[in-house]
């Protein structure tokens, strides 16, 4: 089947899409956007988090066909040109990246949190990031990054 979806503001088209494949697979393998990571494929790890019509979701749990005609924003769509989004910059500044695999999902989840709650408490940060696992267990620096981003905005 053919899939039409707007990704990071650009209308995109993918052909020969198998209806049961995930939006994550479409993004990575068909549209050349490997920022969203493929790990657990069951919604446990959050590494594939993207905005679907402005709502953060695990793209591994969205059937490709469910994205037809929708807006998707991936981690690749957060920066403006060469200027990183404040959340991305704060992850760099805080050293909140170890192996980096969980980072794109955490950046999108943190981005959504700060849009809704510009000055989150630590409890709110933990709650908002509860669906994102860091296998290096670098959570302290990640919390620092979100606090820094909140102060910067």
């Amino acid at each position, binding site marked *: 089947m053919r899939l039409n979806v707007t990704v990071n503001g650009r209308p995109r088209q993918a052909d020969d899409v198998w*209806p049961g494949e*995930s939006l994550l697979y479409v993004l990575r393998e068909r549209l050349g956007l490997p920022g969203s990571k493929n790990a657990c494929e069951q919604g446990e790890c*959050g590494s594939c988090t993207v905005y679907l019509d402005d709502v*953060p979701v695990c793209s591994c749990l969205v059937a490709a066909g469910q994205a037809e005609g929708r807006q998707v924003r991936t981690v690749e769509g957060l920066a403006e040109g060469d200027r990183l989004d404040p959340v991305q910059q704060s992850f760099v500044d805080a050293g909140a990246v170890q192996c980096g695999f969980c980072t794109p999902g955490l950046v999108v989840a943190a981005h959504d949190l700060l849009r809704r709650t510009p000055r989150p408490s630590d409890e709110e940060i933990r709650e908002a990031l509860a*669906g994102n696992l860091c296998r290096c267990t670098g959570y302290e620096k990640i919390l620092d990054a979100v606090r820094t981003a909140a102060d910067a905005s």
Partner: protein
Amino acid sequence: MDFLRPTTLDEALAAKAERPGAVPIAGGTDVMVELNFDHRRPEALLDLTGVGELAEWSRSSGSDGEIRLGAGVPYTRVITELGGRLPGLAMASRTVGSPQIRNRGTVGGNLGSASPAGDTHPVLLVTGARVEVASVRGTRLIPATEFYTGVKRNALAPDELVTAVHLPEATGPQQFAKVGTRNAMVIAVCSFALALDPDRAAARAAIGSAAPTPRRAVAAERFLAEELPWGTPGPLRDSLKRRFGELVAEATEPIDDVRGTAAYRRHALAVLARRTLTWAWNDQQERSPSCA
């Protein structure tokens, strides 16, 4: 595999009648896991996210209000829009997965999957919810108590879809509690819901993930109705709370599995029963004018 994309409920029901083997998909939080892991290859997916009617809720007019919650309303909206009217359901919804999962998962999907561990089932049982199901043959309301028929089995006919849940607005304290290995992203080891109805001196209690289906603990409910000192201010006797916990544990039929042992589930449910009863009773004391 075909991908069916109805945009109205009538189209969805017609598609399900024509293709009973089509698997309905809404948030995808269960169905996509099965597809990703090659555990299931249905002949077709029936995408319900394009059916706007399913993503709405409404309140019936009249004094004892009833909420009709569309099957496709995600948990995040249950929490933010219905926390006051349906406190028990909102509590259970808050324990589902993570923000990403709550943004997609739905009560309709919980019912369609009918896992014994589904988080909203105990609440649907204690609130007297009725499940609205529809087909091209018509619509019927199934009491939640009759909806769960076995492990991951429900009362749906092959051509039917869950369209909504009808829940009375809370008339007293409601509680939900769940045991898991952390405070997020856990399938319940066991779960428990309690609803008190002080005006009728009645109580309902239900367990999850501790029997082949979610189920009510009827003897424990009867005990509360008879023994709770309705109308008398003050804390509850420890012996009453303990006995309630024992009766809840006796209503279980748990198994040993990867998430926990049967003995642990029995024990934990007795603890959850005592705790939620204490919380609900304290809540009731604060509401009661006699304590003001």
